[in-house]
């Protein structure tokens, strides 16, 4: 069994927990219950004949008062860096989260999620020009959530 650790990193309330919930259980909850510390989920992902498992770390969000503890970042093969596409400041902070992740895991792979895309107008949707490895996701509607995880998994396992 090959097990790889991946992290969801980003500011608080951007939808990290919701993305994982959508990916693992295919459900969504409107209520905001903040995450403290970390919660781990597993996802079995056979690659060919090899048994692979993603160990997904739902990490508490960074707040203006508190950054994410470094101990959580150790030994990760990849990360999904999440922003809320409706909150400018969470987008500005993406760069910082990426740097933090890369400082601990120089060989780590990452993808970026601009979440809550369901709240954008059609016109704003257009306006987002996405680089490769960047996804406009909606945990609420399930849009591009599987793409997000499977792109990162592919990067890590192949």
């Amino acid at each position, binding site marked *: 069994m090959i*097990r790889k650790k991946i992290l969801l990193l980003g500011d608080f309330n951007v939808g990290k927990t919701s993305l994982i919930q959508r990916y693992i259980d295919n459900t969504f909850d409107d209520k905001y219950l903040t995450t403290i510390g970390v919660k781990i989920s597993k996802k079995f992902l056979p690659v060919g004949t090899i048994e692979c498992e993603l160990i997904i770390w739902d990490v508490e969000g960074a707040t203006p008062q508190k950054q994410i503890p470094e101990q959580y970042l150790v030994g990760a093969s990849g990360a999904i860096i999440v922003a809320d596409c409706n909150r400018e400041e969470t987008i500005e902070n993406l760069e910082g989260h990426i740097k933090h992740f890369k400082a601990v895991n120089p060989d780590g792979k990452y993808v970026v999620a601009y979440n809550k895309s369901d709240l954008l107008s059609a016109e704003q949707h257009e306006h987002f020009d996405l680089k490769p490895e960047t996804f406009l996701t909606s945990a609420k509607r399930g849009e591009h959530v599987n793409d997000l995880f499977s792109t990162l998994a592919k990067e890590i396992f192949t």
Partner: protein
Amino acid sequence: MKNIQIILNAILSQDVFEYILVDRRYRITDFSENVSRYFDEATQGGNDIRHYLPEIVGYEEEIQTVLEKGNNRYVLETVYKNNYYINIILEYYSEEKVLILLHNTTEITLSKLELLQYSNENQLLYNTIKKILDSQNNLLLVTSNNKIEYANRKFLEYFSIKNLDELKERREKNFSISSLPVKSFNELYAYAKDEEKELMIGEDTFLVKATMLETTYQLFTFSKVTKLSEANQSLEEKINRDPLTGLYRKSFFDEKLAEALEYEQTVTLVIADIDNFKTVNDHYGHLAGDSVLREFADLIKNQLRENDIFARWGGEEFLILFNCSKQEKIVEKIETIRKMVETHSFETVGALTVSFGVATSRENETVQSLLERADRALYFAKTNGKNMVVVK
């Protein structure tokens, strides 16, 4: 020996600690009885610890250093497991084994969680309110004890202050920043608390209103009074402009032309007409057509001087009025413009050409007669192959 003491103490102290021992290959060799409550299934010796504690994945190197160095210790705090919050501690046990201590911190973590939830919700609310205040057109200011606590974006912009932090840093000097013609915010409050009052800041007139927030904060709302002459000027500007291209309208152009003729100035009038423009609209649609008109207007505008008057007549026809009697100079300039358009590649549609009719005013010229002559020149250009400058 020290470690065994820890385990014993831990187990004795109200099941706050559980333990697991693992070997170099992450196999479970021993564990405390209640450890399974943190896992989805019962613990079994010989199994890979990472099956029960996937949190260990990624910490393999750390575990090896614990075995090798003896005194290393790693702590992973606040891990949610099966409705509990635990700290996972990796400790040296022997040269062959690592001790994993699971420290139950549920109670304290739940109270921390409650605080975090509250603080995050407040932070979101604060961000929303801040955005609302920043979107206001009025200058808003909150003070307490004669010091500025908060100012919205409009306020900061007006006084050229970078951000709220800068404002707070300069706290003692708060008052000189705002350059208000009163000595203190308390004084200002007394002045404006009952009704809206007029106030001059520099050249500008404001209406100021003061309101008490709770018992300690004072909110000041400054709304700028726009002078009527300023308002009229910008309105006039709007009326005289073609909304698509931003160029002058024909009516304004006529007025200026009539003025010039009245003062017996020699002027040169140029009519420009984009060739085969109808096919652009037919082929690419009206949106593309509009964008061509804008691009064309910008292209030519850049070639003109400040006091040349450039207007849109309507459709794809444009007018230029040169306040200059040297016709050859103007024709030369128009010829350059014609060539420039010919070689320019327009967005979506690519290459286009333009025809020009030119006429210079004579004695007793009227707006009508000058326009007619330029128009005849344009007609000649259009019927003789287009993409040329014709003078009448």
